[in-house]
């Protein structure tokens, strides 16, 4: 059933993707149009395929020259496209977190359920980190940056259209509807007119000063899904930045819902771990 719905959905998405660019000009002028663009952008960034698995390398860099590396395997399954998702993460590096696993059941409308498994004491811990703004594994990416922020949480305005590194982009300003729901006062996004890829995003703090910049440094088409395989988040106020590489990205592996469970936390199955 889920597969049928997926095939149907991808057909619709595929149909609309090429002509999305044509529509964007038409609906970009209204606030609703800008929201629709951001919604499409969230789908492209965080919901491509029915499920997905990738090896992630994060380099955490400080302006003093310090470098820390996190290597993990991340699997994701959409329970509902644009809605609930499940994430499974297996840490491979550094040594103090190696073999730790992390399970997230994400709900756009309420706090995620999160579990962390600590292999040294075989403990499955429930994480109360309801703050989506917390840093993900000490990087410049917040939980929200990794798993997505629903377009409905912000008010969006189209600022302009321009060229970004040779591509036609729409520049959209987003202000959180609930000030407390975000660590930014507003953000500005550069969204590809053709395929809704997010090329760049600037986050401004509550006083209006720029503090974080996201860039998609390399986007590849994998199984037909545009995928940012290299991305950077830079904190311009501290000079700390994080470079992320996605390798061995695969979509539509047919991961079962039951795989995102305590059993996998304690004993990661090959389909998630390798």
């Amino acid at each position, binding site marked *: 059933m889920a597969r049928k719905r997926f095939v149907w959905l991808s057909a619709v998405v595929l149909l609309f993707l090429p002509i999305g660019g044509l529509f964007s000009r038409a609906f970009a002028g209204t606030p609703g149009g800008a929201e629709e663009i951001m919604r499409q952008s969230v789908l492209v960034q965080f919901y491509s395929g029915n499920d997905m698995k990738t090896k992630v390398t994060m380099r955490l860099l400080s302006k003093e020259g310090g470098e820390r590396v996190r290597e993990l395997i991340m699997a994701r399954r959409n329970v509902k496209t644009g809605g609930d998702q499940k994430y499974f993460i297996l840490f491979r590096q*550094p040594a*103090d977190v190696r073999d730790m696993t992390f399970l997230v059941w994400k709900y756009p409308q309420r*706090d995620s359920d999160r579990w962390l498994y600590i292999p*040294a*004491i075989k403990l499955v811990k429930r994480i109360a980190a*309801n703050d989506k703004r917390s*840093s993900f594994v000490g990087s410049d990416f917040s939980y929200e940056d990794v798993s997505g922020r629903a377009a409905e949480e912000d008010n969006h305005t189209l600022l302009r259209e321009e060229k970004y590194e040779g591509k036609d982009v729409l520049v959209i300003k987003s202000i959180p509807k609930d000030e407390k729901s975000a660590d930014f006062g507003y953000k500005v996004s550069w969204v590809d007119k053709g395929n809704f890829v997010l090329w760049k995003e600037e986050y401004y703090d509550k006083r209006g000063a720029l503090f974080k910049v996201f860039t998609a440094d390399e986007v590849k088409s994998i199984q037909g899904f545009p995928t940012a395989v290299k991305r950077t988040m830079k904190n311009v106020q501290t000079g700390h930045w994080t470079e992320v590489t996605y390798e061995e990205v695969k979509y539509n592996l047919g991961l079962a819902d039951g795989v995102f469970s305590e059993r996998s936390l304690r004993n990661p199955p*090959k389909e998630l771990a390798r």
Partner: protein
Amino acid sequence: MKCFAAVALSAALSLYPCASVLALSLHGFVEGAGGFRLKDDPAQARDATMEEVRLQVELSQDGPADSRLFFKADLLGDGVEERWDADLREFYLDFSPAPVIDIRAGRQILTWGTGDLIFINDLFPKDFVSFFIGRSLEYLKVGSDAVKFSLYPGLFSLDLVAVPHFTPSVVPQGERLSFFNPFTNRIAVPDESLPIRKPAATPANTELALRLYRTFGSYEGALYGFRGFFHEPVGMDPANQTLFFPKLSVYGGSIRGPFLQGVANFEFGHYDSREDRPGTNPLIENASLRYLLGYERELWTNFFVRAQYYLVQMLKYGGFKASLPPGAPEMKEYRHLLFLRLTRLLRYQTVELSLVGFYSPSDEDGMANPQISYKITDGLSVASGANIFFGKKDFTLFGQLDKDDNLYLRLRASY
């Protein structure tokens, strides 16, 4: 077993150069740790509570059909006990004879339940001495020689553990930390020790533990059963001046899930002290009902608060009170324990400040453990903290440790 661990360790180390060729995963760390007393303790001959260097080796090898062999052992130079030691922490085989069955056989660390440092239905051995002297958290748990069957039929999941060979918890016995001698009714003097008798390794003494669990939306529910022994020596045999582990059965349950922007948990257990069901034998711990209520929340970004309330209600209290010999420590019917953990993460989560506190209003005792840890690089970390104990009476859990306040420092390099 120690000899085996030492041999296996050296074999593992000699494998290091060819680990990548064999597709073997080889990791571990080298750690130096020291700790000393903050107060003069007349019951203790040494000022050091910890003086050790350890090498941990962890090996894992994937086999056919989702099987895996896992080995973890420590080689330890211990200045306090003035000896070298090998400690086989874990050594087990994982395999799945069917898609819905996982089996783990061998020495393994077992953990379940919802408490933070408070255990009701987790009746697997612990090393409380390690915890009280400031070793890293992983040393709080001790491996059991066991077979664990995990079944996943669909609607629920089931863990069934059989432990044929009893492993006790490690409790203060005078070597590093003071203990209350119930035969003499006072804190033991230096070099005083009490023999502890372990249950014989017979088929009838095999411990069984069971957990039945499933999720209900965001909530996790579990039922537990246990048949075995107390893991702390709460039985006294005056004829032989010996402590022992009385027979115990436990039935309990737990629930955990989101609550008021945080996570709440509730766990309970009925402790059936099978060798003293009427509660009239003051030499054996009475049956009890135990309840734990916990709540955790990220109060603001990177600042976590966890609070717990633990209640032990002694059953057959009338029997206990009537049979209590004059002068013997009088336990209360209700033991209340409050727990608080504050955690603050700083500098891209490389610095962690934490404070763990226990306080029992009924026993009038408690402890505090402030700690700071810093990940200097990905492979190098340092942690320092203190364990401060207080108590009005010598026979309570923290009261007996009143003079054992200690400061510790650990430095670890991982590979």
